């Protein structure tokens, strides 16, 4: 399988493989950290840090632990959350705006005019409040199922099935 090979080459410090993986995921990583820090420049820097870190920690990844994307997504969320906890960051953004990913996506004018982009924009504007909240917490903020259930005051199982439905809608739009 191609991805598996790519990851394997990446773990062998193959620059070409790394560049490919970067091309596949860097926008997502940037989107996730931006959604947390809400600052383009900081997000730029964090995204770079995330990939550099992935490069150095490449040998710690194992497909047994999960998907490569999931692995790097975790690194990104942790880095971004660490950043928001830093003193300098807190001082610089006392009133961090509370936009969710939906607001960010909906307010973008500069999305490339691909069908994906249009689909996603349509998706988020049509998305129910519960869906927005679940996706925000599980994918952007890295909440566990349990944490999300407490945050949204929903039963554990409901989080799971609702999330499944929401992602299903997204797939219908973009895939």
């Amino acid at each position: 399988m191609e991805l598996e090979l790519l990851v394997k080459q990446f773990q062998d410090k193959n620059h070409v493989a790394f560049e490919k993986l970067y091309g596949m995921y860097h926008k997502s990583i940037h989107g996730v950290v931006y959604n947390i820090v809400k600052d383009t420049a900081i997000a730029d820097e964090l995204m770079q840090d995330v990939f550099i870190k992935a490069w150095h920690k490449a040998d710690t990844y194992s497909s047994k632990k999960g998907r490569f994307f999931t692995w790097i997504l975790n690194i990104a969320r942790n880095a971004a959350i660490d950043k928001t906890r830093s003193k300098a960051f807190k001082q610089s953004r006392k009133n961090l705006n509370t936009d969710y990913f939906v607001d960010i996506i909906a307010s973008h004018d500069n999305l490339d005019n691909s069908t994906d982009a249009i689909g996603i924009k349509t998706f988020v504007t049509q998305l129910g409040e519960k869906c927005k909240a679940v996706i925000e917490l599980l994918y952007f903020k890295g909440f566990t199922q349990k944490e999300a259930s407490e945050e949204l005051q929903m039963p554990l199982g409901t989080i799971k099935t609702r999330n499944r439905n929401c992602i299903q809608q997204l797939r219908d739009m973009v895939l």
Partner: protein
Amino acid sequence: MDINAYIESGILELYVAGKLPETENEEIYQRLKQHPELLQEVEAIESAVVKLTAAASPRAKGYASIKARLNAEDSKVVELQPRKTNWISYTGWAASILLAAGLVWTLNQNSDLEQELQTADIENQYLETQIEDARTDLAATKNLLDVIRDREIIAVPLGGQGEFATSFAKVYWNKANNTIYLDGEGLPSAPEGKVWQVWSLTLNPLTPTSLGTIDDFNTDDNKIFTIANTNESQAFGITLEPEGGSVSPTMEQLYTLGVVNTES
């Protein structure tokens, strides 16, 4: 195992989100290996999430931005290059030093010139004063010349008397305005405590009338003195008298005497 029920449970979405316990992750990994349709499902979920998260990025930099950082890290031994002489920097500094020196020099020149200008101004003023003085002198001299040339003037030479034969004087008498101009150039300076006294004389009988003493004789430059004379003088004489003058002339000290030539 019911594959569809497993898919519908939503566990795979959580798997992609990455917050399942490690044991569960490994379990799923094994199932993905066994059931390609599960892997397909996971890939679809992942693909959708990748697109969604990417859409939340206002912009993202290309690989080039990170490649530079990686390359910098990869080249572990950084060769120390001999420092290149930075000619641009040096010439820059040299130019600015030259410029600064030039400015200082110019400022100095300027203050020197200002000082010279001031000196020239003072000299100018001094010269102007001299010219002014010369003009005044010239005017005075012209005035004197005019007086002497006047048709109405009677010139009376006063000759030296007795032991004072070397002395002489001249009187220019303007009857019209009752003034005499005495030219005392031929008289010595009056000794201390003494003063020249001018007399108007009538001859028959000999009657002297004092026309006054010349107190500033020694200090006067041109030795020409203007004296009022309303008398019908027939002669003029000058005697050396004690300071303050005398009522009548001391004849032993009569230095010069001249008779008015009435015929002229």
